[in-house]
């Protein structure tokens, strides 16, 4: 069970949160000219590392705000919590 530090509410149990998957997935810059392969990469071919993953989380049973979490997928250790729009931290 994870203890997640919401940047707005503090440390809360993971059942209060919703994980929405990988952060920093970039939409094709020009959607009209992007190929089917580029769209497939954007929509389906995301990272699935055995190690550190950066994810978007939302505190649905709290402040309802979005933020990013860097987390190890083997140990589940949370390495960083950072705001939406911030760059991926070096962890």
């Amino acid at each position, binding site marked *: *069970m994870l203890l997640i530090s919401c940047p707005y509410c503090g440390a809360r149990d*993971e*059942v209060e949160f*919703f*994980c929405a*998957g990988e952060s920093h997935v970039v939409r094709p810059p020009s959607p009209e000219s992007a190929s*089917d*392969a580029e*769209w*497939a*990469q954007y*929509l*389906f*071919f*995301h*990272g*699935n*590392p*055995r190690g550190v*993953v950066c*994810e978007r989380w939302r505190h649905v049973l709290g402040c309802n705000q979005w933020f990013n979490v860097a*987390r190890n*997928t*083997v*140990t*589940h250790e949370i390495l960083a919590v950072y705001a939406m729009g911030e760059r991926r931290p070096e962890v």
Partner: protein
Amino acid sequence: MGNYSALSLLRHAIAPRPLPPAWRNADPKPRYDIVIVGGGGHGLATAYYLAKNHGIRNVAVVEKGWIGGGNSGRNTTVIRSNYVYPESAAIYELSLRLYEGLSRDLNFNIMLSQRGLVSLAHSRHELDLFRNWVNCVQLNGVDARLLTVEQIRSLVPIINVCPRSATPIYGGLEQKRAGVARHDAVVWGYARAADRLGVDIVQNCEVTGFVRDDTGVCGVHTTRGTIRAGKVGLAVAGHSSVLAEMAGFRLPVRSYALQAFVSEPVKPLLDKVVLSGTLGVYVSQSDKGELVIGGGLDHYQSYAQRGNIGTLEDTVAALLELFPCFSRLRLLRQWAGTVDVVRDSSPIIGRSPVAGLYLNCGWGTGGFKAIPGGGWTFAHTLATGEPHPVAAPFALSRFERGALIDEAAAAGIAH
């Protein structure tokens, strides 16, 4: 090594002597025609059908731990083929038919018990969807029938059908040919049968990289040395992305923990598999008397092979909603497997972006039921270089073509 039979059992009962090993624990040779990575059900079935159907016997299955120690040993052993889309029905029904003849084919009792699976609808709208589902399944040539609440009560007398329940039961559907099988026996049966046809089963042999030449992959680097191969097939479930990354490409796969647990054993009281997708729980009773309980995926990506207490609590709460009489049972064991979930809840079978490397992955929460069909079609793909007709719709290229096979609803448990 003789055949298993009633006579051989009797002979051993009269004059006990140590049974010979059922398969050789082989050392890796420097080269094989085909190397299969992953000694679970799918990998071993693939090796068996390569040898049996295609006459390719210079085959190795390399496994980083012991065979059947991954998801093949971590599932809830449910087998069914009541899928909505014709593509899915074809491959899961192929699997179920192979399962029906598997004990005889492998000369190994896989303890298949076609006790029937009952899925529950908890609203009028869900019941409408079930009607559609039953029609689709029947049009696919697979058995299914709609159940009234009365019929559910007669099939599963201990279930809570109280209309004042928080999640009342409105009806259900049943596939009578669905059921359970002994997971270890499936793995060991395929291992023994493949070994007898000359396949090498190499355990404690972890793949650490791929041997490359100008055209593509031509072998694997392992913790037990380099093994060259004409073709390499991956059947590594939740670790598919890790192996794909070694080969330099990504897969549309995400790995999650999927939990299961068993209760203490009790006398026979449940002779169906009961599933509620809405509540996120399914349960059957094993031959030992334990209730085998499964739930939905844990909520975030994980390679940990251990389950999360929050999902366990949700699953147990759902179970007790359906079966209040289980409330005093204690759970004996709890575990999780790392499952490879694809966005459309359908597998990926066929070529990878790298020549010489082939994929059998993406079975998500339902790989056990698909072991014979996955092995059968993957062996065809490896042997001929062309996809088996039944597996062709499950090519990796479907994501670029937009030809998804979206089985989310019929995949049974929430993805």
